[in-house]
């Protein structure tokens, strides 16, 4: 496989590591993930462009992108958090260059940015309640964060699992983990990302920084989702294989003193990724409902966004 075709081998490996893959995935695995991610990005861009055209605009806005994932409330919430912190970071940079902005993205740094929190701009979306009305009251402090807290449940669970993983880590390992967490398709690689995703072909070649950032965020999510799903699949497969082995060759299972070390955990293979992609692409019952009683069950469908 031509390795130069794939530009994000390292990033994907890092993301997979953060998502729970301990082994070293093969280039084929990262390659297939990269292809999938690219397909998703292009699909997102196409749909967002169509949405923008419906609005009467030629260039896509962040709202168009968020609109595509609006049903995944947890993801939207994470994205908003991400964006608002990005805003905070930008203003902080302007005001005080000394603040280590890189830390702000980390959850560990959330505590010490208490004063920033006051200024943290709330990203309002056009389909929210406040847009019902022509006038916007000034921000109040009594924001009801109930919904946000609910949406954060998934994020918190994820952070918790990361915390569990890092508990037993040495300092070096933890540093490695932190570095991996910062892996991004877009961070300081905006141009490469745009070329890779074919921005010029699908939408305007020079999009808003925010859009690239959102896409960077979303690509990370995609890799994560794929990896988690693939790991689940692999686990199931492994369980199945061990039970089969137990049934088939009980003899060989017996280990002896001078046997070599047992086989370690094998990394995720491309077939797991493919299976994970297939499962994630399974059409939702919701989208099939309107075709009931009307045939057309085998109609071609678009790529589902993850």
């Amino acid at each position, binding site marked *: 496989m031509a390795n130069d075709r794939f530009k994000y081998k390292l990033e994907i490996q890092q993301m997979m590591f953060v998502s729970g893959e301990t082994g070293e995935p093969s280039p084929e695995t990262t390659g297939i993930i990269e292809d999938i991610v690219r397909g998703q990005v292009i699909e997102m861009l196409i749909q967002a462009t169509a949405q923008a055209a419906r609005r*009467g605009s030629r260039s896509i806005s962040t709202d168009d992108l968020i609109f595509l994932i609006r049903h995944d409330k947890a993801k939207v919430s994470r994205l908003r958090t991400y964006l608002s912190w990005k805003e905070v970071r930008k203003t902080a940079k302007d005001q005080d260059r000394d603040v280590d902005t890189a830390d702000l993205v980390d959850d560990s740094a959330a505590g010490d940015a208490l004063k920033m929190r006051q200024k943290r701009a709330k990203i309002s979306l056009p*389909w929210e*309640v*406040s*847009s*019902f*009305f*022509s*006038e916007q*009251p*000034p921000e*109040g402090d*009594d924001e*009801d964060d*109930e*919904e946000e807290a609910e949406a954060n449940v998934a994020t918190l669970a994820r952070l918790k699992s990361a915390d569990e993983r890092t508990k037993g880590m040495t300092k070096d390992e933890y540093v490695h983990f932190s570095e991996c967490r910062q892996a991004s398709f877009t961070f300081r690689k905006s141009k490469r990302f745009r070329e890779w995703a074919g921005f010029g072909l699908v939408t305007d070649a020079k999009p808003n920084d925010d859009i690239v950032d959102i896409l960077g965020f979303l690509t990370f999510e995609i890799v994560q989702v794929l990896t988690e799903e693939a790991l689940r699949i692999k686990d199931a497969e492994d369980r199945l294989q061990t039970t089969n082995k137990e049934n088939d060759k009980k003899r060989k299972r017996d280990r002896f003193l001078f046997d070599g070390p047992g086989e370690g955990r094998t990394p995720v293979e491309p077939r797991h990724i493919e299976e994970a992609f297939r499962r994630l692409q399974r059409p*939702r*019952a*919701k*989208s*099939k*409902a*309107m075709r*009931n*009683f009307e045939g057309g069950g085998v109609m071609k469908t678009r790529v589902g966004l993850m």
Partner: protein
Amino acid sequence: MSSFSSSTNLRVQLLRDERSRTRTNSIDPAETEKEDPIDPLTAACRARYARFEKAIPAIFPSRRPCCATDLTVHELLGVEEPNYADDEPLTNGVAKDGGDKPTPVVRARRAEEDDDYDMDEEDDEPPAPPPPLPAAILKARSPMPTIQISSPDRTKSPSGKDSAAVTREKLEADKKAAEDAAKLSFSTIFYTLESDRDAMLEQQKLDESDRQVNAEANAQGAPGKLSNANLGASSLTLKHLIARIDAKRERVAVSDMELRNLMSEVKKNRSKWASEDKIGQEELYEAAEKVVLELRAQTEHSTAFLNRVNKREAPDYFNIIKQPMDLGTVMKKLKQLAYKSKKEFIDDLNLIWQNCLQYNADPKHYLRKHAIAMQKMTQNLIPLIPDITIRDRAEVEAEEAGAHDQDADAESDDEPIITSRMNRKAPGTSKAKKGAKPVRTESTPEAKPPIVNIQGVPDGARDSPVPAHMLAEASSLSQNGFATPPLAHTPSNGHISQLDLDSTIEKYEVDDDLDPEYKIWKTMTKKSRARAASERHKLFRGDKIQLDEPALIRARVGMGRYIRSELAHGDKDAAKDIKAPLAVAVEDQAEEVDEMLPNYYKVMDSVPEVPWNLSWLGDDEEDVDKFHENLRLAPKGGFTQPPAGLGKVMDTNMKVIQDTRKICHKIGVIKQMQTQTQIYSNQFGKYDPKEFVEQEPEDFLVSDDGPIMSAEVCRAAFQRSIGKIFYHAGFEDYQPTALDLVTDIATSFFQKIGKTVMLYQETVLPTGRFEPDEILLHTLAENGLEIDHLESYIRDDIERLGGKLVQLRERMRGHLSDLLRPALQDVENPEAAEEDMGHFINGDFTDDIGDDYYGFKDLGLEREFGMSISSGLMRVLQGRITSSYQAQSSSSATVMTTDYTPPPPFEPLSRELLKDQIGLVQNFFLAKLHANGEEPLVEDEDLPIKQRAPKPRLPPNGKITTPRKRPVSGQGGNSKKKKRPNPPPPVATKPPPAGSTAIIAPTATPPLSEENNGAAPKFDEKDMDNTPGMMSPESIMAV
């Protein structure tokens, strides 16, 4: 129909079939007589038949007194059985035939002295439950009715003319009798409609042929009769008059044509066939035409003979048939006056049948049957035609002059022609492949037997000497054994062959002549039935009901007839319902064309009065009309949302949204006040949303329980709900097409849900059916929904949204009071401030702005009484708001400028000040002043913001390239939803008609019940202008 269903004498086809079977069994009376006491099976059948016949009234009991019977079914079937069993076999077989058999004998005898026997029959008919068959029907049962009935004294009349007249008379009488019989049978037999279609088709063919003949005749130009109808001296009666007229012809200012018309008027009894030159033409043609018409009218048989045989239909026809003939041609020839004698005419007619029999040699061919029937018919009709040979008058006169024997006139007219006809007839008849016939026909004219021994002819008729020629015709062409010539006159071989032939024919006739009664019915009512059937077919063209056809309407005449028949029936129940005046009016009605149809053909006439449940109470009573069981008001609430449940929460949410919008509007107004130096009267629209109230459709009636199926109303109600959901989702207004689209999608979705539910309901598992909750869950899953989805919708999109909305409203209120505070903090009069604040909070100040302060209609009054408090406050308020806002926004700048006192403003430039200016600008300012109406000029800075021209900006290169841009007008404060491209024209919300399963009272309903009626209509108009093409839920809130 009631009179038929409850008729005492209902006899359906089955019974008739049975009877006709027995009848065919005994088709040869001689045989029957011989075998009279025989065949116990037949006897038993007949006994059974007779018994059932009598039992009919008991089986179908009638309310009517006249038809009621004391007998019960049990009596008839059980108790009386032995009697019948005793009776029937003992009496002769004839009596067993339902009492029919003996009657013909009696009737025929009575016919000799009384022609009106039919009437008698009719009179005493109704009370007797099993009606004896009318004579006419019996006559029709025997194959040769006319001959058999003819009374001896009449047939004995010496003159052939007389005999023709008598025959005609008799034929007519028979026809009338048959008609009466058929009419009578209406009430005794229920005829099915199956043969109507054939009747219609045949009638159509006949009409077509009529048209064709007429067209052909007309194409030949004026027929010769006019030219023949010479007005010359040959007319005997009017000879002198005509001579006189002829003499003074020049002095009569009338055209020949008119004269001729006059003449024919005078000679009224003369027909179109009349001719002066031709003796006997009128009589002959008159009769001949009648015969042809009569033959044609027998559509059941005549259809095939109406028109010329087409070469396409039968390519070899003209090889076999050298001399084709058909009824149409005969008619044409008649019109062309091509016949010189009765014989020629008869020959042509016979030629038709002979051709047919010859061409269709196969004895089983269906046309043969028709041909033979027509032949028979012809034989019956021939006596109608006087035996006349048309001769020129001149010739006759010459003969008269020459001859002295007066008596010989008639004889010579008669006898020679008969002879000659018979002689000439021979070759024609011999075509019929009947070996015996030539011999016989040769013999008959000579022998002239006074008594023909016809087997099976009733006694009275048997002795009657039939005129020779008639008999000859009959015997030569008849099919049934009755007319077999006497043995003495016929060689045995001929007789045998004749019998053979007859029997074969008989065989094929049987299927048609199943039941003579039925046959009479068919022939007598054919025309009427054809008409009725064609009307019916018009209604049901193309196998579906034709909505464009005129409605079936009860005619007064028909109803009257029906009522009369009911009265005649003696049914007091039916009669007493009808109000006397109506009945009288109907009685007075002129008799219409009497149609030979039973009442059930005219369904509309016999529709009984619908008993109505409408009762009128006096004026003092509250409700005037009461609907009883049939119709009732539809229950309320079918088209509104139930008062409890999710809808209530949504309503609350929407109320909050409306409140918040109101506050938003006020904030917008205040913001504009802040930035603007001047406020225009029409600047602020009044925002006063009305409460959502769902309205019921107006009262309408339903006839049954169950859901109301009215697509339009249901759709409108659905649309209303969707509009509410739209509003709930934050859309203040939306395009009607969007609403339509969403309604369509939602309708389709709910239809799918319904179908899925039905599918699961109808599915039968081996373990049983699905439980209701299972069905529901399955349906949701099949349609891509889960309980979680629904729950999260309710939780997030409705309940939590409500919380958010309330929160937002509070914040909006806070924001508004924040905006108002600077204007209200240092008002001298705290109460006024309170009040004013109250105005704002309650949203009343727009009223003040719109109506009091800026309402020019009130301005005069305001001036007279001085400024009212509120308007004064408003002005003060505006000033304060503006100043405080400016102070807020430019606080830093003002702080800076307080250090020094600003220079005094320049005085406005006026004509006086202009003099001091330099000469260069004087002309410029002069022009400006002139344009300004000699008023002092105002500095640009002092102009209201709107009138200020934007300051030109110099680009970096220092060149002014673009002309000044016009100031952008418009506040831009409106919501972006209103800026949609291509707003369609405003759609008036159509109040959909209400509908129901049964009766619908579609009514328009007002769009919304207005909560506060104080809304100025002026404003509503403006609101419409602001958002053309948009509709808001308020406008579609009503169904």
